[in-house]
């Protein structure tokens, strides 16, 4: 387990320890088995100040649920969300957000914000741009009156929106512009960590580039940390310092971006990388096609969840859940054979 408080010489601002979030499946009248969807199942990692941690995985892996736990939209079932900050006396303090009640959480909410995937459904259609961006500030009582309006205008400028649109409604804007409104809203309270949940997936390629540039500029300007959740591996590679891979609620690999992409240590990561279509017609490669489907998160396979689809699976994999280990410097994986592989990455 990571014991150092600094990752790559950067201060840790958030640490998740053994985080769990399960959802109960409601029973039908005559069906007796009530199960749980183990949406997030024993996840641990750290995020440093000014760092972008990418989080990738496919349907049902739990990355969206995890993002929501981080901003406490959900209360975790178990585990810790350790937040490191400087209090009013200038002292370094650590507090576990997972345990706090709603009222205890309130002063911390402004430090964590979220950008959502769908720019069409994440903005209230009955609120103007001004209303949407100013709402978090009003809720945290961090500004009012003229100061509030100035701040909203400043944020609109920061995200590249024309300020004369202040009193317009979402329907007047394109997808890319709406996403900018969502980003401005997320910055309204001067957060330290922004969870960006698929912020560019719904956007066209050229708009995607604009928004990614914007997110990079804002990170530099405001010293933000990002938890960047996405399924597009090329985008994640571009924005992230380190990348974590999830599969059916569990972390399977975590490493620096370069290491993960060039030298994956988990077979699922290898298959994911191999599945990405490369936009080069002359690129020839033997692709790993995984058999089977992603398992039902309410009824995962025994042992390693990936074993039924894993090209390298052995008997042990069916029996025993692999543990999360540092298999190379700063490179973590949950696989019985991680140290023995020489898997193919993308260079």
């Amino acid at each position: 387990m990571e014991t150092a408080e600094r990752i790559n010489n950067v201060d840790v601002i958030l640490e998740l320890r053994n985080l769990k979030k399960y959802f109960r499946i409601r029973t039908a009248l005559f069906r007796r088995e009530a199960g749980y969807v183990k949406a997030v199942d024993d996840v641990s990692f750290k995020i440093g100040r000014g760092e972008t941690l990418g989080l990738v995985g496919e349907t049902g892996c739990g990355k969206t649920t995890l993002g929501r736990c981080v901003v406490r939209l959900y209360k975790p079932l178990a585990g810790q969300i350790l937040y490191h900050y400087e209090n009013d006396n200038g002292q370094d303090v650590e507090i576990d957000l997972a345990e706090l009640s709603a009222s205890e959480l309130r002063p911390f909410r402004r430090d964590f914000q979220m950008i959502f995937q769908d720019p069409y459904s994440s903005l209230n259609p009955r609120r103007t741009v001004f209303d949407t961006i100013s709402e978090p500030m009003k809720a945290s009582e961090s500004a009012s009156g003229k100061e509030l309006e100035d701040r909203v205008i400043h944020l609109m400028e920061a995200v590249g929106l024309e300020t004369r649109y202040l009193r317009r409604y979402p329907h007047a804007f394109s997808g890319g512009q709406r996403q900018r409104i969502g980003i401005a809203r997320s910055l309204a309270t001067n957060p330290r960590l922004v969870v960006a949940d698929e912020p560019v997936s719904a956007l066209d390629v050229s708009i995607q580039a604009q928004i990614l540039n914007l997110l990079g500029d804002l990170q530099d300007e405001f010293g933000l940390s990002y938890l960047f959740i996405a399924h597009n591996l090329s985008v994640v590679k571009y924005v992230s310092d380190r990348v974590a891979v999830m599969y059916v609620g569990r972390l399977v690999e975590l490493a620096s971006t370069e290491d993960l992409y060039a030298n994956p240590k988990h077979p699922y990561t290898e298959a994911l990388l191999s599945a990405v279509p490369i936009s080069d017609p002359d690129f020839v490669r033997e692709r790993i096609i995984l058999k089977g489907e992603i398992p039902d998160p309410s009824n995962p396979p025994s042992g390693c969840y990936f074993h039924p689809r894993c090209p390298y699976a052995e008997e042990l994999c069916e029996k025993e859940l692999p543990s999360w280990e540092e298999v190379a410097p700063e490179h973590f994986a949950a696989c019985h054979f991680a140290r023995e592989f020489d898997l193919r990455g993308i260079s």
Partner: protein
Amino acid sequence: MTHLPESSSGSERPLLDVMDLKTYFYVDEGVLQAVDGVSFSVYREETLGLIGESGCGKSVTALSILRIVSSPGRLIGGKILLHLDGDTIDLAQLNPSGSEIRNIRGKEISMVFQEPMTSLSPVHTIGEQIREAILLHRTKDRHAAQDIALDMLSRVRIANPAQRINDFPHQLSGGMRQRAMIAMALSCHPKLFIADEPTTALDVTVQAQILDLIKELQAQFHMAVLYITHDLGVIAEMCHRVAVMYLGKIVEAGSVRDIFYRPLHPYTFLMLKSRPELTRGTGKRLESIEGTVPVPLDLPPQCGFYDRCPEAVEGRCNTAVPELIEKADGHWVRCFRILTYQR
């Protein structure tokens, strides 16, 4: 008007010739020129990619071919020549709800969409839906139809086809639904298979399976494929030739290597440059195209890309619409300021 490059299979005749196709939408605000003079050809056992961003008209082009554009859209000009053995039919002339086009849909030409639930009925099992197409076009024998349906389901690699065939769409995962839709579309061995963003909504590992499947089935059935997407990676992997669309027109077309390695149109060039995978390391800015795609309403008589083009020349590019010309063998471009390279 102008035909696109010949296929690599030499002088073989195309299966489909789209000529100067125009589909406009008559809305309150005016006339939306969604497809505005589009021409291309599709050859057997070849894949033509149609690439462009939202609003470029690629989907409406596909819907126009099958004559399923709904009001207020109307096909108002051009020809859609389908060359079957001995016969040529102009689909643009057919009655969109008549029996002739209904004989072609599902049999000679079939289509899959991005969201499988838009074309799968939620109240019928997938078996019923696949059998319906087979009974309509291939055989009246119900037992034979069932066998064909089961065979198709296993060809698209749906596990336990005998069980799954009696499932309703909501009982299948997204990837399985998409595969069921492909099974349905291919059950009558169409000559032309149109795929409109079939994998955009799917996980990348499922996408890889589907792309592999389409290529395999293309070889098995000798199909022509028209593949519509905005994803450059998929285009590079699937297509032999590519047409780039912008604001209802084709702005560049050529072999896949021409498009990726020798783009001539500034839009194509910028689209290629804005790929995140090209930028080595974090911290560097991505190339992007300023502004957004305009709405194709009341377009001025100028190059559609004028407002966003870094190469635009006032007085030249905003005074007329450039024609599509063949700049190099099989490589066409619509631009007054064609890019030149030292390669």
